[in-house]
């Protein structure tokens, strides 16, 4: 934002194919969040190209960017970012509202995704009446609601204790098993090892990109 520009990313070249589950790791300041924001069309790269599902993402105006975000991407944030005056169900239904889906179909679909994350009984509750893990599961349901190609998660377990973290990761793994492409930014090693591939960033450069054996986040294993 200031006058002095700072190059955060200095030459990143990697691709993710459909169905992959990738974690992006690195210490703070390594540029992992910036990368995710560029991938999420929330931010734009100064140089280089980004192709999402065969579409070149470059110099988009806000209107088109909004449409692509709605169509291609689902976001999961560290601080959940639910709209605090809307019920869990209405939060999940929001992306569908912006797709122009009729209210009754919207509610039906949103309910389906809430059931998927196991919160059907909490549909009418406000975010303030939910625990951290429940909020994140509502956020996941919302990210899924528009049936996106890619799920982008920025420190999805950053604000949760480890037990809740594993519950959320178990849910995310389940979604990946159904074929969704998922990118997770994290700095926690155990979370990263629950994905299938780890990209390690340091000072804006990829220092390591390797496939790993996925650890299933079975909660009972850690009780």
């Amino acid at each position, binding site marked *: 934002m200031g006058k002095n520009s700072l190059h955060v990313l200095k030459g990143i070249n990697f691709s993710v194919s459909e169905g992959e589950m990738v974690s992006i790791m690195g210490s703070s300041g390594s540029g992992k969040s910036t990368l995710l924001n560029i991938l999420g069309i*929330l931010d734009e790269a100064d140089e280089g190209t980004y192709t999402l599902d065969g579409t070149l993402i470059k110099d988009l105006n806000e209107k088109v960017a909004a449409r692509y*975000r709605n169509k291609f991407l689902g*976001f999961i944030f560290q601080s959940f*970012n639910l709209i605090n*005056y809307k019920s869990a169900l*209405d939060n999940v239904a929001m992306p569908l*509202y912006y797709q122009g889906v009729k209210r009754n179909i919207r509610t039906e679909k949103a309910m389906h995704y809430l059931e998927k994350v196991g919160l059907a009984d909490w549909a009418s509750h406000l975010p303030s009446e939910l625990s951290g893990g429940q909020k994140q599961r509502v956020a996941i349901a919302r990210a899924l609601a528009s049936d996106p190609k890619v799920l982008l998660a920025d420190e999805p377990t950053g604000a949760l204790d480890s037990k809740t973290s594993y519950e959320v990761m178990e849910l995310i793994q389940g979604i990946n098993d159904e074929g969704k492409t998922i990118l997770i930014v994290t700095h926690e090693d155990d979370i990263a090892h629950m994905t299938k591939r780890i990209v390690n960033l340091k000072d804006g450069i990829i220092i390591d990109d390797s496939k790993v054996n996925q650890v299933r986040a079975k909660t009972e294993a850690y009780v």
Partner: protein
Amino acid sequence: MFNIERWQEIFEAIRKNKLRTFLTGLSVASGIFILVILLAIGQGMSNGVEKEFEKDATNRISVWTNVTSVEYKGLNPGRFIEMDNRDYEMAVNKNSDKLEFKSGVYSRWGQLTTYKKENGSYRVEGVRGDYQFLENATLVAGRFINQSDLNTIEKVAIIGNQVYLDLFRDKIALGEYVDIAGIKFKVVGIYSDPGGEREETRIFIPLTTAQRVYNAGDKLRSLAFTLEKQDNYEDALAASEAFSAELEADLKAKHTIAPTDERAVNVNNTLENTKKFYDLNNMIRWFFWGVGICTIIAGVVGVSNIMLIIVKERTKEIGIRKAIGAQPWSIIGMILHESIFVTAIAGFVGLIFSLFLLQIVGPFIETDYIRNPSVDFSVAITTVIILVVAGAIAGFFPAYRAANIKPIDALRDE
């Protein structure tokens, strides 16, 4: 605008943000309320002043003289100008068809007046019979001065009600003799005057008697006239102004006074004063409008302020909405739609409240200066619309800016 989904969004936002909605509404409603009450009081004051003045309105024209202030035709300034019967006759003869009531006046201040053991100091005015109507005096008892008194230089007096109370203390006064500056006068009448005590501490005697008693020859202190009634105010004012100007010019010519001398001859035109009153009335009205417009401006600033805060408060929500696919115009539309809806409803609530209050309380306000406060309905509606439009414009810019910031910046906003 008539999208049912949008309306549902807005109603939900309003329902879930009651305090915010209430504060916006309160500022708009109170602004309108104050404005309407203010305009109504202005109207009421205007009505009141009008009424107050009409009660005493006369078309009297008074003339009195003073020292000259301008050198003219070799004559020094500082000459004292005195009028006499010939000035009066000149004015009367020249305008005999226009004049309604007319009188020359010879008066003396502070004349010691005694009745038995009581005494007081009063103003004594030597006048003609018409003077009763010029003064708007009403006889309580007896009669006023008549032509025969003037012809025979009778020593009769018509005393003011206050003089009567001072000297006679409710005893019979008619037919009694009072001593004015050493000369006995027979009391033939008692009058009252709407001007009150100040106007009732006077004694009227025939003009000719006054001139004789005070050894004034045919001198006059002042002249008083009224003109024949005209059909409307404009004509009356024009006639009265023409008469005043002509009379002043004639008197100046006759007494060799510079036409530019503003001090030597004074012609006071009550109708002109009426006009001043109407002007004052207009001033009051403009003043209240000025204050009202300032109130509107304050209201607009208040609404703008609240809009800024609302947008600031919703920055994160806007970021979330954009991240899940909201387009900039749908964000702007949502904010404006909500604000217009709230301000419009609140504006009408304020309007209805104030009109209701005026309807209930208005008729009971009957003081000297405020009468029947009321407001023009179309003016009130217009102000509501102005406030709503101004609020929308004021809300647009922050909404536009918020809709165009990057979602990632909005999300970081805490």
